[in-house]
């Protein structure tokens, strides 16, 4: 199997000009771009990912310069899915972030063969923990720290729940970190590899963390859920898990699903099965090291 790291710089650039078929979990993205940040983001963060040989791709995406005068003055890029642009153009140096967000948009908008939830998922000893995304709760920071501490990353952004079996499927894509979190994770682990920072996006400064080799090599291994944990960073709080009612967890997850209402009764049944299988907790912490220890105790 060919991986992106097997391509020379020239080969990668050529493929990107024609369309590079990137496999990420169950999805194949046909990615076309001549933008330098897209090239370097894929080179650095997706090095271990397979280049697909299949003729049938799931999403045809492109990051390109819009045809206007901004080509020379503060150049911009626009994300396209199948020749339509769902977003406004962004500054050209946000090209890689724009690709990442666009890929998330494709999955949220079209991948209704799964129940999709706004949550991070990691696995250890064969069981998955799901961290739903309360904005500002520090979900991505904790996800990054766990992924650098022996947990296998399934996803940082979108949980894929199988409608027939209830298992969770990985995507293994890079973790999107914002602002202060980038420094925290750099200080947390010397193994953290980041792509280039994009400054002044609508989310502030963002950078993506490279997923581990193990994460990428096992991106076709699904996993059953063990826990749903709602993390919240709180100054000076000891790391502490408290039970959270399942009904309440269900409602939160349904409201934070991208396609719960699209799936109708199937969505209800799938989420019901998932939450019944899981132990649900609230989790407060102030130090990442303590949080990682608490998760380790839970998984053994």
């Amino acid at each position, binding site marked *: 199997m060919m991986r992106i790291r097997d391509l020379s710089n020239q080969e990668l650039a050529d493929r990107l000009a024609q369309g590079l078929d990137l496999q990420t979990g169950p999805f194949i993205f046909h990615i076309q771009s001549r933008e330098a940040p897209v090239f370097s983001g894929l080179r650095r963060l997706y090095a271990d990912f397979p280049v697909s040989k*299949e*003729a*049938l*791709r*799931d999403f*045809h995406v492109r990051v390109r310069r819009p045809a206007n005068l901004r080509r020379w003055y503060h150049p911009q890029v626009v994300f396209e899915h*199948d*020749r*339509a642009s769902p977003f406004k153009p962004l500054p050209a140096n946000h090209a890689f972030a724009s690709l990442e967000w666009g890929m998330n948009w494709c999955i949220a908008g*079209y*991948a*209704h*063969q799964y129940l999709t939830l706004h949550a991070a998922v990691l696995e250890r000893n064969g069981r998955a923990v799901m961290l739903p995304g309360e904005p500002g709760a520090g979900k991505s920071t904790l996800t990054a720290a766990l992924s650098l501490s022996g947990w296998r990353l399934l996803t940082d952004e979108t949980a894929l729940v199988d409608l027939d079996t209830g298992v969770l499927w990985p995507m293994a894509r890079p973790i999107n970190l914002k602002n202060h979190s980038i420094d925290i994770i750099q200080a947390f682990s010397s193994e953290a590899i980041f792509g280039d920072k994009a400054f002044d996006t609508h989310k502030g400064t963002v950078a993506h963390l490279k997923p581990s080799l193990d994460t990428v090599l096992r991106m076709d291994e699904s996993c059953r859920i063990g826990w749903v944990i709602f993390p919240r960073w709180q100054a000076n709080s000891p790391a502490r898990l408290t039970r959270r009612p399942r009904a309440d967890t269900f409602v939160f997850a349904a409201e934070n699903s991208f*396609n719960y*209402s*699209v*799936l*109708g009764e*199937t969505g209800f049944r799938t989420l019901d099965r998932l939450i019944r299988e899981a132990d649900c907790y609230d989790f407060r912490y102030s130090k990442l090291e303590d949080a990682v220890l608490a998760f380790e105790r839970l998984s053994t």
Partner: protein
Amino acid sequence: MNAAFQRLLTALHQPETMTSLTEREWDALLRHSRSASLLSRLALDVQTCQGWDALPLRVRQHMRAATFVAERQIRAVRWEVHKMHEALGHLDIPIVLLKGAAYVMDDLPPARGRLFGDIDLLVPRDRLGDVEMQLRLHGWHGTHHDAYDQRYYRQWMHEIPPVTHITRGSTLDVHHNILPLTARLKPQASDLLAALHPIAGYSNLYRLGNADLILHSATHLFHEGEWAHALRDLVDLDTLLRHFASKPGFLKALHARAETLGLQKPLQYALQSTQALLLTPLPELDLTAPSNKSANVLINRPFVHGFASAHRDLSGPGSDLALFALYIRSHWLRMPMHLLLPHLLHKALARSKTGKE
């Protein structure tokens, strides 16, 4: 006609051929049919002809996803019609569902796997005031507050400005006729209201009669110029014709009805286009009649570009010019020149002022 467009048409009229497509062909067909809002329809067709298990896994996944979207839209239409009926049902006037909402509420075949825009209604023109008042009381509010827009709709159009529900965000288009007051063709709304078909389970709720369903769909498609959904609308027409025209005498009655309403032209275009592109079987139709022949040569080529306009891959060379011609044609049919030119000028100025669109 290019190969990609031909493949989409073949999938629509011979769904069993989908089982022998290559993955490379599917890579294109999935995208093209999704752009034309027809992927969910193909999914149901391939299941009906027992071809599902022969499809590649990835195709089944995308089709399953598209089917969920179509099912959700049908649930949403049923709910919106229910809420609309709560607001208007007691007015003691006929409330007529048009197009998609009519197919869904009367379980007609075009509802299968169909994707929707807004919900369209037809009500008697002299009761529009009551209808607007009741809708406002139940949470539907107008979105076009500009004095020019108000005048445009109320003086010239066949509908009032669209109303959107304040919490659910759904939009209703309330019509009092099926073509603008200024249009060249002038069907009488009273003729349509005299041949209604009741919707079971609801008081005062109707759809158009069988022939009028087809005539309205054809008129909308060929005389209103919304080419973005043209192929889906043509599939609606094909499905309605296959459903009703198998009954002996139906086509003859359809032609007679078109004559009564003055809608022979759109009917002729509809019959020719469905036969040419979707091979709609129309046993009683005499295609050798001279009026049918001439239109074929002059009109159908831009129409084909219109039907292929859902995705850039589907349209061949000359497409931009053909679509421009269709745009001009639709305005020409909607309004006489002395109204049309000032209107287009106003629109252009308004656009440049707000910088929108």
